[in-house]
């Protein structure tokens, strides 16, 4: 299973997680883990998800999440997990 990491960065407000979760469930994407933290006053959230049951490909999911981010005034990225594993695990 290839995991995707979704990150949200921006000013905290009501409904960010809700909106992202609605999108994910609507596209059959399973959430494996969620973490969040505040860095330098900015809201950082990370979700580890499994997109393998979704009918949409990575590009489309990334683009649609980015659009949702724009509506919410935050930055949403979807990246495949390997980049983080490569950089931080030997």
């Amino acid at each position: 299973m290839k995991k995707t990491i979704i990150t949200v960065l921006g000013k905290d407000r009501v409904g960010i997680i809700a909106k992202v979760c609605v999108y994910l469930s609507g596209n059959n994407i399973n959430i494996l883990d969620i973490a969040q933290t505040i860095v330098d006053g900015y809201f950082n959230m990370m979700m580890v998800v499994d997109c393998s049951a979704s009918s949409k490909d990575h590009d489309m999911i990334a683009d649609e999440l980015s659009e949702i981010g724009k509506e919410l005034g935050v930055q949403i990225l979807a990246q495949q997990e390997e980049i983080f594993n490569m950089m931080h695990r030997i």
Partner: protein
Amino acid sequence: MIGINEVIETNDMIRHMNLDVRTITMGISLLDCVGADLSDTCDRIYRKITESAKDLVHTGNEISRKYGIPIVNKRISVTPIALVGGSVAKSEDDFVEIAKTLDNAATECGVNFIGGYSALVSKGMTPADELLIRSIPKALSVTGRVCSSVNAGSTKTGINMDAIRLLGEVVRETAELTKDQDSIGCAKLVVFCNAPDDNPFMAGAFHGVTEADKIINVGVSGPGVVKRAIESVRGESFEVLCETIKKTAFKITRVGQLVAKEASAMLGVPFGIIDLSLAPTPAVGDSVGEILEEIGLEFAGAPGTTAALAMLNDQVKKGGVMASSYVGGLSGAFIPVSEDQRMIDAVEAGALTIEKLEAMTCVCSVGLDMLAVPGDTKATTISGIIADEMALGMVNQKTTAVRIIPVIGKKVGDKAQFGGLLGYAPIMPVNEFSCDAFIERKGRIPAPIHSFKN
């Protein structure tokens, strides 16, 4: 599982510290493209390049989106054209035809540069080598994407001084033919000693004859990431500083390794090497000069610069080799003047001279790079500067290179504008004492004693 702080760290490097994959370069052998005549050879070259690299740009973009990492350039390097065109190109203009074919193929593939308009003449020149070298000024003035390089010396062979003498004239002529654009043609011409066969960075990339039919080489960069990392250890000991640089270099290289493996699998082309080089761009926060300042120098060029650079270069290599199965190319810190804002500032402040740059090239990758000098600099002086740099490479058993631009019509105090990644450069003063009689001697400088290791 990966933690949120690790995710934040990686994305911070990309967003705020200019971490990127600088280039995916596909090396393509053209040795099987020699045809019956010039036009047949050009057709074969065009077909092989456009067929081999048709998916290169698309694949690069796809990987970029998948991992959220910018992949700035997609490029192509080919077999040195003097070898490919030797039997069919009978004049300088014939070689220029091949250059135009390369340019068209690069345009068709959507890559911004194609390297390999090259000759390997470290010991001697064949008639084809000499024709190609003499055709460089015209080839670079009538094409936009073609890059040229000449390997004019090596530790094993010594320095081909006949080639160096000719290249002084070629550099000047290239400058003349592109004088309406501040002699930009010279920015696409590199003279090497100990040129590597697998360097993915332009303008010096070519696909060496020891390489496979096709290969993917990846160049990663990240001076901004190193700069930010060492900000956190200001005032600490060298041990702590070195450890920090090494860890950062490791992380950067791992991203390159991921991208290279992915590109190799998607394109069905073997993975060659990762070149981990701190390659600056004119963007603020993407500068090797800035790293040197952070290490503790007022400006690059101040006393201590050579030592600081030697340490930086070594730590970058040590971090890099652990991160990838195959590290190659140039791998180290680049110190181009025009492409690095803080190096430009150092020149303008009077802290950095050609002579100090020359010393710095003894301890870091490559050499005198993107150096703008007065337009009236003599050909023999340019040859002398090149010969000095070749000698450093030959004796120290390392790659050195010269990319020097005599900017026609400009003098010390003026600036040359190259635009884009090439940036701008203040014209640097050149030592004007003559080396004419030295350059006019015929033949070659013998290989140094320590080359006899058999």
